[in-house]
């Protein structure tokens, strides 16, 4: 039974917050529809400069006679409504989110600013390419950066989120296998995998075969060797795993797969442990997706938008979703180096665009000119364009080109960091996770003793004997001013507590988190009911999810 959050008992026993939070009034707020009155207005359209039309006459049977029941409110009410709602939310801007594999890092504000720059935010996707070179240069530069970060040869930015990227990556896999004569039948997925992995495999028409993890929580090489056969299309691997452990046998894994003609797909959700330190393309990955809303700081926004670019080795490039971004060669002769280019284009910023990175250059017959060595900011070749002539493409995975707004933000993040910042970011992320591990391993059970990278997974084993589960501890953590960690995942750990601090947490915030977790562990011993009935300090206490599922109410209805 949930304790009444307003009862005298809970206020007097009051959660010990260790100084991170204190109660404060938040405004109540009804639904928009409950505040609506006919005649209230928040909009005003300018007068029509063309003749008005009789819409009923013009549309005939297609005319809408009864308007939808949208609310009628004034602007102040709308501002107050959403501002009040916002104060009910926890957010990264308020404090740490230790959610495993979500990488809840700081969302830099300059990202928001540059994403709203008029020429970029207002660009229609079908505008002529001659008028879209600015945004295409942004696409190109981001692609080049991501290719070097991943160690891959080709990339598409089309997928709208990680799961969509997985779908695209498995499509590439399937297309390649088909070109080899046999699409194959199954995908191997470790039992520690995120739920999107098997869901994706099923959508692409593959059956899912479970791969049991070994005693260290990694891939069991013997099981893998046994299970990979001529009908295995790929292994979907997360590295580091959802346990935060780097798969140190990774090249053996790649070899076992490749020996049977299967591919290695990597779920890039945990790239925050790898950027600038190691590249998936170097350790045998054939195709992978990235999550820009995790590793590359684009905001979570309450659940999206995200972006899930897919990078692959050269042999998969012909199958990329179309269209593909290419740069036409400037003139007949290729520009072999920066010096020649500069002499041909004396003033690189004559058109106002800062010089940029190089892109794959196409000769008129479509052949790729060799990539030149990297130079920070000089473009080679001519204009960028979309190439639709891709006979082996898997097709489109969405209309238009991808979540452009997220590309701008991700590129701004990469530019703000540079190579040194990106490396330091990864190092701090791993340092923070290991610090937490060290400071909590005496009070929470560590099911796997292998080294953690950017996240650490505990289990609730020691607390379960007192009847307290990971979900309860998570709810109690809320009273201490933190968002819960990831509860009950990965599935291979019973009662998992999956913690990823990211590099964005200061030592102070980490110490407060550690102190909170230690305090809760004490509470489990001394007063478990307090933990089992948490949270006590929130606007609403635990909500009745059973009722919500049994009798779903999914919209407001006017009282009849």
């Amino acid at each position, binding site marked *: 039974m949930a304790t009444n959050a307003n009862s005298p008992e809970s206020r007097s026993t009051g959660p010990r917050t260790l100084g991170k939070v204190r109660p404060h009034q938040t405004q109540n707020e009804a639904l928009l529809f409950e505040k609506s009155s006919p005649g209230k207005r928040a909009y005003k359209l300018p007068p029509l400069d063309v003749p008005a039309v009789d819409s009923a006459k013009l549309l005939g049977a297609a005319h809408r006679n009864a308007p939808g029941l949208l609310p009628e409110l004034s602007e102040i009410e709308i501002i107050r409504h959403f501002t009040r709602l916002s104060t009910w939310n926890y957010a990264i801007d308020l404090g740490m989110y230790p959610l495993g594999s979500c990488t809840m890092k700081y969302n830099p504000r300059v990202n928001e600013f540059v994403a709203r720059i008029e020429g970029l935010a207002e660009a229609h996707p079908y505008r002529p390419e001659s008028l879209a070179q600015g945004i295409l240069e942004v696409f190109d530069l981001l692609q080049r950066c991501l290719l070097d970060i991943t160690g891959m040869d080709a990339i598409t930015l089309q997928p709208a989120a990680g799961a969509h990227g997985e779908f695209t990556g498995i499509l590439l896999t399937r297309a390649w296998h088909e070109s080899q004569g046999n699409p194959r039948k199954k995908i191997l997925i470790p039992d520690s995998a995120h739920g999107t992995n098997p869901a994706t495999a099923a959508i692409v028409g593959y059956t899912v075969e479970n791969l049991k993890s070994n005693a260290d929580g990694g891939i069991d090489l013997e099981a893998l060797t046994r299970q990979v056969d001529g009908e295995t299309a790929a292994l979907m691997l997360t590295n580091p795993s959802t346990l935060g452990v780097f798969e140190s046998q990774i090249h053996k894994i790649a070899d076992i797969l490749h020996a049977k003609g299967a591919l290695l797909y990597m779920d890039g959700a945990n790239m925050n442990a790898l950027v600038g330190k190691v590249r998936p393309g170097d350790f045998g990955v054939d195709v992978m997706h990235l999550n820009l809303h995790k590793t590359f700081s684009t905001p979570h926004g309450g659940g999206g938008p995200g972006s899930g670019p897919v990078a692959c080795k050269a042999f998969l490039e012909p199958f990329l979703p179309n269209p593909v971004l290419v740069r036409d060669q400037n003139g007949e002769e290729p520009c072999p180096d920066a010096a020649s280019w500069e002499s041909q284009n004396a003033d690189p910023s004559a058109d106002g665009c800062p010089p940029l990175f190089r892109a794959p250059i196409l000769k008129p017959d479509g052949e790729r000119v060799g990539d030149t060595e990297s130079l920070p900011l000089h473009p080679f070749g001519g204009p960028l364009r979309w190439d639709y002539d891709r006979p082996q493409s898997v097709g489109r995975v969405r209309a238009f080109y991808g979540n452009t707004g997220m590309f701008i933000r991700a590129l701004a993040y990469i530019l703000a960091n540079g190579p040194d910042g990106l490396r330091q970011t990864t190092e701090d992320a791993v340092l923070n996770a290991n610090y937490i591990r060290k400071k909590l391993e005496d009070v929470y059970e560590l099911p796997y003793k292998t080294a953690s990278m950017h996240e650490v997974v505990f289990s609730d084993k020691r607390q379960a004997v007192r009847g307290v589960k990971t979900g309860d501890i998570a709810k109690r953590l809320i009273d201490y001013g933190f968002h819960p960690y990831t509860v009950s995942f990965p599935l291979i750990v019973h009662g998992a507590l999956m913690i990823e601090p990211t590099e964005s947490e200061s030592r102070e915030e980490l110490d407060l988190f550690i102190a909170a977790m230690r305090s809760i562990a004490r509470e489990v011993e001394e007063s478990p009911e307090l933990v089992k009935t948490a949270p006590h300090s929130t606007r609403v206490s635990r909500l009745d*999810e*059973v009722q919500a599922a049994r009798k779903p109410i999914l919209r407001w209805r006017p009282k009849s």
Partner: protein
Amino acid sequence: MPYPTDYRYTREHEWISVDGAIGSIGITDYAQNSLGDIVYVDAPKVGDSVSANATFGSVESVKAVSNLFSPVSGKVTAVNEELKTAPDKINEDAHGMWIIKVELSNPAEVTTLLDAAAYEAFIAEETAS
């Protein structure tokens, strides 16, 4: 919890009660307890066929879904309409709430199922591990 001795059980925690040619099928008390509050039952339609050991539907709680495996083969003759609006009745009385009734195509299959004692031993093993 005593398991009805006239029922038969599967290792997937379904029970079947046979009356002539018709078997009534539900899930055991152990199953409802593991699942927690049941919010939805996905059942087949009257006239559908079921096969022994194959799934015929699922039971959902808030956080989990469990497949339902048929103990026998045959044709569905009735579906418990009450469960559409009150799936929680299974939590209240798992052994009294049948989900489907099936006309058995192969009555001999029932003899291969666990009896109450064997089922209780089975779940004792499960809980110990």
